[in-house]
């Protein structure tokens, strides 16, 4: 019992108990009085007695102190006192504290922002049970690489069920929704009926799709997403009795998705607002075409099955399919990979590189704060020495420095968190829409823990380094030293910090430089067509009202006719897809004079005659399409120079014939050669292209990939004023018809750079912040060194040193450190920027120009940071300086 009682008594004694202290003081006062009485009785004067009594009593304060040590946990009181002292020190130097906190906040905030994105996009598990067993499946061409899966093959993969629970195909579809006010275009996802099994979830309401509903004609059923159900149907509990009119046909609502999951396209990829899911219901034609790579596929591994086993099973299936369909599949392999990492494959490296970049920013920030605290610690040296001489232990002094660092961490961390959330919101709103799961970025426990840990680490590092380095000095040295005098160990540490800072800034500058160079290279690429003043939009004609290619052609021709009469429209063209907006491809057989050549995977587009003039694609030889190239006339085609070069073997292909399909469609004759274009954007190759007249679609494939969809108008005025006119013309033709994806080609083009611009913007900002911090840091260190050397400078000036030589002398050491930093930075940049290879375009990570300019730039800035204080110091009046001490 006794130890417990004592413990409680001590614990209570921590609370500064005034009465106990007062009691003790009173007791000691009585003690002294009695002692004085006695001494006076022995013949001392009252003054002598007073003095002698205190002498015999010993230190009154140390008696109180030791009684308190005996009564309580001294360290708790010490802690409270140290906290108070630390707070006071921080408050006493508000500017320095503010700079330290802001610097830490910048570093921590940037890291919080990037990490919260990395956390949501890469680290957080998929919203499905055992999401680690979900695999992505794709088909890879021997030379062209990855493509989606052909539904015909998907069905076969799903049959090989030794290793996979199921294979789900999914893809986005758009439908016109009517019955909810004005007709509108909504996005849905077409999925195979096994989707709930594969994803491992249940509908929140209703049921999954039935196998028999996953067939053409039976598929007029939908499952709503939670969001659509709540926002558009008001969360109607009777929703399962209702129908949705899509493309003019009623669809029964058979279920509602759980709120945790949505469509694959939303859960996995960009923030598409998917409203409903419908059965994929692949048609017989689709299921008969093994070369039609159009759907995304996801599978679920059976328990205990490895990726390699599943891959082996799929390889066998693909092997069999390739023998059965050599034309379509001989060049293809099937590949599976873990879904989670597959989804982020495009953004993973760029995000991790950005995370590395902000870590470097944090390093620079941390070094700066350490340097600041070094300066303060130097000024405190004498104070600390006095305290040590008066009996403070080294532990107490380091403890106080630690607490001060922790307080800084706390302040820096909190400010960093606030800044981080702000920066994160900025980053999320500017993020390219292609970033998967970017909308799920939140401030969760992981992010908070990371921020806290980071704040603690940086604060402790920055605060402890000076305290540790200085507390090694002997008391005597410190007492003798001038306040703020610099010891050798301090000089060495500050040199190391400066070198680290310069090196980190150079690595960041090099990274940003490489991205800038890439971006320049990209801007210089010629697309082969013009995007200026071209407004595009999509008119998705529903199969219900426009059942065949002919009715669709009629619609588009009348639309073009009507719009062409508008004053703002200079030219108008329509096609299946315009460049940058997608496209279609396949294989054709070229009948050359020396025999038939198979041309696999060429671009195949159906275009109206004005296509080439709207996009300004130049004719090289032969002729373009005219209004007479219609059904009944000779079927014709135009190819590009890449096609002529690849398949012409030096001969002019005009007059040759093309066929495609099985059974083959009627031959079409090549009548012209046009300039090459980069269909997919600036990073794409100049691929062989074949253009067919939209009005002759029956001679090739009017119902498949070349289904007419896009319209492009070359406009003279501004696009926004043109849009209502266009909408009016569409409504005049068909009041139920929606118009979607209204964009200028320029906008499409710039959004195709969005991810590069984003990376470049971030990397450049980080580099600028790091260089700025490096400037401030070096400037601070050098200015401080100058005030330390003021005396020496005064003597040198008095002895006749020229100011010019003096500046050189003073700048010399800083520049020498900076040069070491440059060396380390270059080595680091060469090592680290290699990981950026995937982000670069036509630029090697070892790009000479960047590796010269970036370090030179940083060196210049750092040099300036050395020069300015040195020049100021050299202008001092020697007399003033020498008199000052």
């Amino acid at each position, binding site marked *: 019992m*006794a130890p417990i009682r*004592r413990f409680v*008594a001590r614990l209570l004694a921590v609370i500064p108990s005034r009465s106990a202290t007062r*009691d*003790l003081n*009173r*007791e*000691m006062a*009585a*003690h002294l*009085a*009695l*002692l004085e*009485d*006695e001494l006076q009785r022995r013949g001392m004067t009252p003054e002598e007695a007073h003095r002698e009594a205190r002498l*015999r*009593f*010993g*230190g*009154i304060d*140390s*008696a109180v102190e*030791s*009684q308190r*040590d*005996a*009564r309580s946990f001294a360290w708790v009181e010490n802690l409270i006192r140290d906290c108070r002292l630390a707070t006071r020190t921080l408050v006493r130097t508000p500017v320095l504290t503010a700079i330290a906190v802001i610097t830490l906040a910048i570093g921590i905030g940037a890291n919080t922002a990037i990490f919260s994105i990395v956390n949501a996009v890469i680290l957080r598990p998929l919203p499905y049970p055992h999401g680690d067993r979900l695999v992505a499946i794709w088909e890879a061409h021997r030379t062209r690489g990855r493509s989606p899966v052909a539904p015909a093959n998907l069905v076969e993969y799903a049959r090989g069920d030794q290793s996979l629970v199921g294979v789900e195909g999914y893809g986005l579809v758009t439908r016109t929704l009517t019955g909810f006010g004005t007709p509108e275009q909504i996005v849905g996802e077409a999925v195979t009926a096994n989707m709930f099994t594969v994803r491992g979830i249940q509908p929140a309401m209703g049921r999954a799709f039935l196998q028999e509903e996953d067939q053409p004609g039976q598929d007029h059923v939908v499952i709503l997403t939670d969001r659509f159900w709540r926002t558009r149907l008001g969360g109607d509990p009777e929703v399962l009795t209702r129908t949705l009119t899509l493309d003019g046909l009623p669809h029964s609502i058979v279920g509602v998705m759980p709120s945790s999951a949505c469509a694959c396209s939303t859960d996995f990829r960009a923030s598409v607002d998917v409203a409903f899911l419908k059965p994929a219901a692949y048609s017989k034609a689709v299921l008969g075409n093994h070369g039609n790579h159009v759907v995304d596929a996801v599978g679920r591994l059976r328990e205990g099955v490895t990726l390699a086993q599943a891959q082996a099973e799929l390889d066998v299936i693909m092997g069999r399919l390739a023998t059965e369909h050599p034309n379509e599949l001989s060049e293809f392999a099937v590949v599976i990979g873990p879904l989670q990492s597959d989804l982020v494959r495009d953004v993973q490296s760029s995000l991790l590189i950005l995370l590395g970049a902000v870590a470097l920013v944090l390093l620079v920030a941390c070094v700066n704060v350490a340097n600041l605290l070094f300066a303060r610690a130097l000024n405190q040296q004498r104070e600390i020495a006095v305290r040590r001489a008066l009996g403070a232990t080294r532990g107490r002094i380091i403890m106080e420095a630690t607490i001060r660092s922790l307080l800084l961490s706390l302040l820096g961390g909190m400010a960093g968190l606030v800044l981080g959330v702000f920066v994160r919101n900025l980053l999320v709103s500017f993020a390219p829409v292609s970033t998967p799961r970017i909308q799920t970025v939140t401030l969760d426990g992981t992010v908070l823990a990371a921020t806290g840990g980071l704040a603690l680490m940086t604060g402790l590092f920055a605060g402890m380094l000076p305290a540790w380095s200085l507390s090694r000095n002997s008391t005597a040295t410190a007492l003798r030293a001038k306040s703020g005098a610099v010891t050798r160990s301090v000089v060495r540490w500050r040199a190391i910090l400066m070198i680290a800072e310069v090196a980190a800034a150079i690595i960041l500058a090099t990274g940003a430089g490489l991205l800038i160079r890439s971006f320049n290279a990209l801007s210089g690429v010629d697309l082969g067509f013009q995007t200026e003043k071209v407004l595009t939009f999509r008119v998705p004609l529903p199969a219900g009202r426009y059942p065949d290619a002919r009715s669709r052609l009629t619609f588009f021709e009348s639309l073009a006719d009507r719009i062409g009469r508008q004053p703002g429209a200079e030219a108008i063209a329509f096609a299946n897809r315009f460049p940058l907006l997608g496209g279609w491809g396949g294989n054709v057989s070229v009948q050359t004079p020396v025999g038939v050549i198979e041309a696999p995977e060429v671009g195949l587009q159906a275009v109206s005659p004005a296509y080439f003039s709207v996009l300004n694609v130049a004719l090289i030889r032969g002729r373009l399409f005219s209004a007479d190239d219609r059904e009944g006339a000779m079927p014709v085609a135009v190819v590009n120079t890449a096609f002529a070069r690849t398949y012409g073997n030096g001969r002019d292909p005009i007059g040759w014939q093309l066929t495609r399909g099985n059974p083959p469609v009627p031959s079409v004759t090549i009548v012209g050669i046009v300039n090459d274009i980069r269909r997919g954007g600036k990073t794409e190759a100049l691929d062989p292209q074949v253009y067919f007249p939209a009005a002759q679609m029956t001679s090739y494939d009017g119902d498949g990939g070349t289904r007419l969809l896009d319209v492009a108008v070359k406009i003279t005025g501004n696009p926004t004023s043109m849009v209502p006119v266009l909408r009016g013309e569409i409504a005049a033709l068909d009041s139920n018809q929606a118009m979607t994806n209204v964009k200028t080609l320029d906008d499409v083009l710039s959004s195709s750079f969005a991810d590069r611009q984003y990376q470049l913007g971030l990397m450049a900002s980080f580099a600028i912040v790091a260089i700025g911090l490096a400037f401030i840091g070096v400037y601070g260190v050098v200015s401080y060194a100058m005030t330390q050397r003021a005396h020496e400078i005064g003597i040198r000036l008095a002895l006749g040193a020229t100011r010019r030589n003096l500046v050189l002398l003073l700048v010399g050491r800083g520049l020498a450190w900076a040069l070491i930093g440059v060396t380390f930075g270059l080595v680091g940049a060469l090592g680290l920027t290699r990981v950026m290879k995937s982000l670069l375009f036509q630029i090697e990570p070892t790009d000479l120009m960047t590796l010269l300019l970036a370090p030179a730039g940083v060196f210049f800035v750092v040099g300036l940071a050395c020069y300015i204080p040195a020049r100021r110091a050299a202008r001092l009046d020697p007399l003033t300086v020498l008199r000052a001490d």
Partner: protein
Amino acid sequence: MTTRKTGKDPQTVELLQGTLDLIILRALETMGPQHAYGLAARIETVADHPLTLKQGSLYPALIRCEQKRWIKGTWQKTESNRDAKYYAITSSGRRALETQADSWRRLASLVEKLLVNEG
């Protein structure tokens, strides 16, 4: 014993941890209730030297003993009519004194033996 700490008067005795407790308990047992000054004066008389002990250093020991309930302090008037806190030994204090004195004697005789033999 030439350590760093001995820059003091060679007459000053460095007390072993806990011995002051023993001294206080013993003094209170033989003298009856006593205030801190009385205790200090008593120790000085016994030691024949005024500077044996800084009088203030009694206080940690007094507080320690009071926390252990070995002694109990009450405010009373001295003969010279001053307020002073008088400490009296408690029954648990007497028991503690017995065991402490016992172990002290054993320790002292051991040290003594060692000093004689090794000397």
